[in-house]
Each structure stands twice: as C-alpha cells, then as structure tokens.
C-alpha cells in the first residue's frame, strides 16, 4: 500500500488540510464545538435546567439570545450544554468501537482462515441491520440513558471499524518488512502490534472522524424519539422534539438545536474528508 511507505508527519497533514478550504472550515467548526463543550460552564449565561416561568416561550432577546422554551429555560445555555452531551457520548462510543473494532478486524486480517471467517461473518450480521434500527433495538433492551446510548452506537460502529481495519491489515501484511520481521524471529503478536497496526492507523482515523458525525446524528435521532438522553438533561434531539410540540406558538425554538446538529455533523464530515485527502494525497492530485 502506497500510503504506508512514508510516515506522514503531523505538520505535513496540517499543511495539506490548510490548503483545502472545506477541510479547514470543517476543522474550525469541530474545534469550535469541542471548545464549547469543554468550556460550557463558563460560557453559558444560565444553568441549562433552571426554570423561569416569567419568561416562558420568549423569542430571541438580549437576555436570552436564542429565546426560552416552555419552562423558561435559556435555549442558548441548553445548546451549549448539549454540545457536551453529544460530543461526549459520541467520543466515548467511537473510541470504544475504534479499539474493539480495530483489534478484532486486525486479528481477522492477520491470522486469516477460520478465525477471519468467524469474526467477519458475525459482523456481517450486524451490518445487515440499518444502524438506527439496531440502536433502537439495543436501547429497547437496555433502556435509555447515556451509557446505553454509547453502547448502542458502539455496537453498530464496531463492525465498520473491523472492516476497515481488516482490509488495511491484509494489504499492510504483504509488505516485505513483515517478512523481514519474521526473519529476525519476531513473534506473531509482536509483528501485529509493532509492524502492522502502526502502519494501518490512517484509514482508521479517517473512519473515526466520519463516524463521529454519524454518532452525533444518532444521538439526536434517539433523543428526538424519546429513546435518548432523558429530560431535563439538555440534549439537542430531545430539545428538538420539545420544540416540535410548540412549533405553532414558538417556531424559532427548534432552529438553534437543529442548527447545532447540522453544523457539527457537517464539520466532522468536511474534516474527515479533508483528512482523507491529506493522508492519501495521491488520490486527490490528479
């Protein structure tokens, strides 16, 4: 595989991303939302759960730039804290699935044979279900809640990481440095961990970034259906669902949580695409 020939430095990759306008745009959005999530307690003007019935269902004002919901809660603060929930859950879910999926896929690709068949055919069963249906089914079994949502997302993401990692490992293991490693007496696990996996991470990182977008969308989707994070925890999907109830009296309510979901999903997608181009420049520069 061509991409494994040269170890790309972090700076080379950043330079390539900077040249790509859409990727740069995506990077800024992602960074902005990560910043919002981390600094939520300092930048949000109100508590996201504090109710104030005197200002129920107000439009945007200087005191409440994004307006207030039926309970008089500040929508801006809820959107800010919502970033914490969405990014937090999706980060944990993606991290877990990267680790489990990559290792299982790498084992399947490296050892091959019956083990490969067992692992990959099992994952094919998971891949046969539409992701959101699978997530709903898992939530139906485990019940709603942040940890269970993370589990649901991880379950449908693991097979996808396993696929990417298996494919990459199969191509990386054909390199002569793997044979060279055998000829100096390296054991199987050492070859997998020291020679194959470090040369297989680029596609996994790209996949992880793109998967963050899907995960955020799933969290919002589950929240909207009432299967996600339960109120009063601020979460974009459940806030959207609440906004829908009052869409005739307060149509602006759904705009901001919806915009947040849209922006962050788009940001991760552009960032992931840009990263893909930066890590595989040969595909682009033609």
């Amino acid at each position, binding site marked *: 595989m061509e991409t494994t020939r040269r*170890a790309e430095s972090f700076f080379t990759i950043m330079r390539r991303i900077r040249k790509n306008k859409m990727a740069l745009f995506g990077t800024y959005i992602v960074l902005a939302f990560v910043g919002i999530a981390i600094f939520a307690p300092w930048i949000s003007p109100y508590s996201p759960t504090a109710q104030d019935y005197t200002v129920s269902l107000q439009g945007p004002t200087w005191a409440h730039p994004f307006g207030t919901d039926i309970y008089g809660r500040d929508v801006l603060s809820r959107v800010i804290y919502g970033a914490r929930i969405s990014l937090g859950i999706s980060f944990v879910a993606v991290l877990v699935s990267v680790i489990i999926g990559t290792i299982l896929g790498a084992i399947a690709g490296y050892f091959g044979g019956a083990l490969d068949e067992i692992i990959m055919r099992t994952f094919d069963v998971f891949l046969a279900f539409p992701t959101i249906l699978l997530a709903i089914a898992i939530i139906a079994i485990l019940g709603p809640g942040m940890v269970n949502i993370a589990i649901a997302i991880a379950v449908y993401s693991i097979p996808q990481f396993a696929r990417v990692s298996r494919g990459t490992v199969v191509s990386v293991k054909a*390199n002569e440095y793997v*044979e060279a*490693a055998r*000829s*100096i*007496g390296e054991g199987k696990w050492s070859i997998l961990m020291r020679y194959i996996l470090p040369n297989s991470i680029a596609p996994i990182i790209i996949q992880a970034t793109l998967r963050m977008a899907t995960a955020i969308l799933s969290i919002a989707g589950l929240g909207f259906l009432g299967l996600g994070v339960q109120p009063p925890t601020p979460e974009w999907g459940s806030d959207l669902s609440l906004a829908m109830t009052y869409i005739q009296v307060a149509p602006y309510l759904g705009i901001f949580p919806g915009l947040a979901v849209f922006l962050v999903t788009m940001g991760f997608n552009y960032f992931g695409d840009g990263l893909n181009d930066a890590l595989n420049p040969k595909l682009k520069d033609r």
Partner: protein
Amino acid sequence: MFVEVKNLTKKFKVLKGATGRKAEITAVENVSFEIDKGKTLGLVGESGCGKTTTGRMIVKLIEPSGGKIVIEGKDITHMKENEFKPFRRNVQIIFQDPYSSLNPRMTIYDTLKRPLRIFKITKYKDEEKELIMKTLASVGLKPEHMTRYPHEFSGGQRQRIAVARAIITHPNFIVLDEPTSALDVSVQAQIMNLLRNLKNSLSLTYLFISHDLSVVKFISDQIAVMYLGNIVEISTTDEIFRHPLHPYTRLLFQSIPIPNPKKKIKIPQDVGELPSLLNPPKGCPFYSRCPLAKKKCETLKPQLKEVSPGHKVACFLYDED
C-alpha cells in the same frame, strides 16, 4: 558442507480459470545444491523461475513441500517456528526492495534494536547502543542516522540499513534476494562492494539470488542457473563463464551487455515467453525455447549430470550415448 539443499520442492495451490478449479503449480522442483563455509553460490534465472521461492524456503519464510534443507549439519526442513527460532540468529535474509523491507514507523535504532532484544544479545542499553553504532559504521552509516526514519534515506542507504539489520546478530549465512536490483547502477556497485567486504571480514556464507549475471559473477564462487523451477546447470563461476554448456545458460550469457560499442554482439533471436507453470512442459522445461531441441527433449526430462569435475548440466546434448 555448510548449507545443503536436497531435492527441495515447492508446490503452490492456485485457483485456475473462471470456474475457480483448484490446480497445483510447481514453483521449485527437486533443487539440490551445497554451499561451503565462507563461499557464495549465485542463483540466477529470469523472473518467475523459482529462485526467490528457493531463498525464502531456506530461511523458512515459506514451508517447503518436499526435500531437505540442512544447515550446519542440522535438518531444519520440518522444524516448527519455535524450534527454528535459535537458528534465525544465524540465518538471515536481505530483500530486494529496501523501500518495502523497512518498517516506515520505526526509527533505524528501533529497527536494529529488535533482533538484539529478541535474541537477548546485549544485556545493557549502553552495550546495545554501542553495538548498533558499530554495526551502522560497518555498513557505512553515521551514528546520527540512528534516530531517523526510513523515508529520510535514499535507496542505497536503506539497503545499507537492511544489511545492518541482517548482520547485527552475527549470522553465518545470509540469503541475498536480488539486493541490488531495485537500486541505481552507481549505488549497485557500492552495495556490491559492501557485501563482498562484509563477507570477507565476517566470513559469511552467501546465497546470492539475482537475474543480473554481471553482478553474480562479481561475488560468486559457484553459479547455479535456474529455469522454470529446475536447476539446469551448476558449476564454479570461472568454469561456467568459460564453458557454458546448457543452451539456456548460453542464451543468458549472450544477453549480457558488453561495455564496448565497437564489439558486435549477437542479440538472441525472439525467444518467446516462459511456458506457463499451470501447464508445464512434459519433457525438458526448456524445450519450447531451445534452439538445439531434439525429439526426445519433448517427452523426456534430462537430469542434472556431472559432465566434468564440479560441472553439472541437465541436457541431453551432453549424454555419452
């Protein structure tokens, strides 16, 4: 006898045609040779003749299907990986493409440190570092190269690193699988000189695999010519260059460019393609291309026979009768 290979055979299972019928090809067939301690055997032949497969079987990167490999009096043919592991220290291989034989994510120090750690050659870090520096110096690299990654080096330097990795465990026997064919001509000469010097200073035994006869001539004491998985001629370097016997060997020698523009060379005529291994010739493997083929060559396979002391050839032209 340092390395002894007897009737070594490798068969690969392949899927044939659109129907995916299972077939078997014989990549290496009854190959036998011996290499004395401190000597070099050159194994030549065109691509696909099985020379690389032979080399990889000897260092047990590929399992042989038949025959015997004896190194320093020990039969290693059917050893399991854990039994063979102590031998790996003594038996090394250098690959053709230095762009693919070094792990791009490991620094040169890490690459060279692995064999030392695996075979527990050095006890302390200082000792390890010293040995790595010494080995780098012996292949013509500088100590400051240690912390760099393979992509920071040229092809020739990379091949030097690969050589360093192979010699750091002080092996006795090295298989060199076309170590210069991926390099520029000017660099080829440097690497060849390095390999010859190391052979003399470390008293190494080489199996030198190449398709380039001039390179093989430079380093080998003996030359074996392979065609379609078979050794067709084997002799000392001087003898084979002076009296090439097999028609294939002669054809090969005609293809060596002569560095003299005035001298006319007879360019071999259209010799056609190598026969498919899926459908190998019944008789002599060289029958389809041989200018001197006789009738019996089509159905009978000539065996390797000694025609003069130390010179063996597999061709009916040299039968007594």
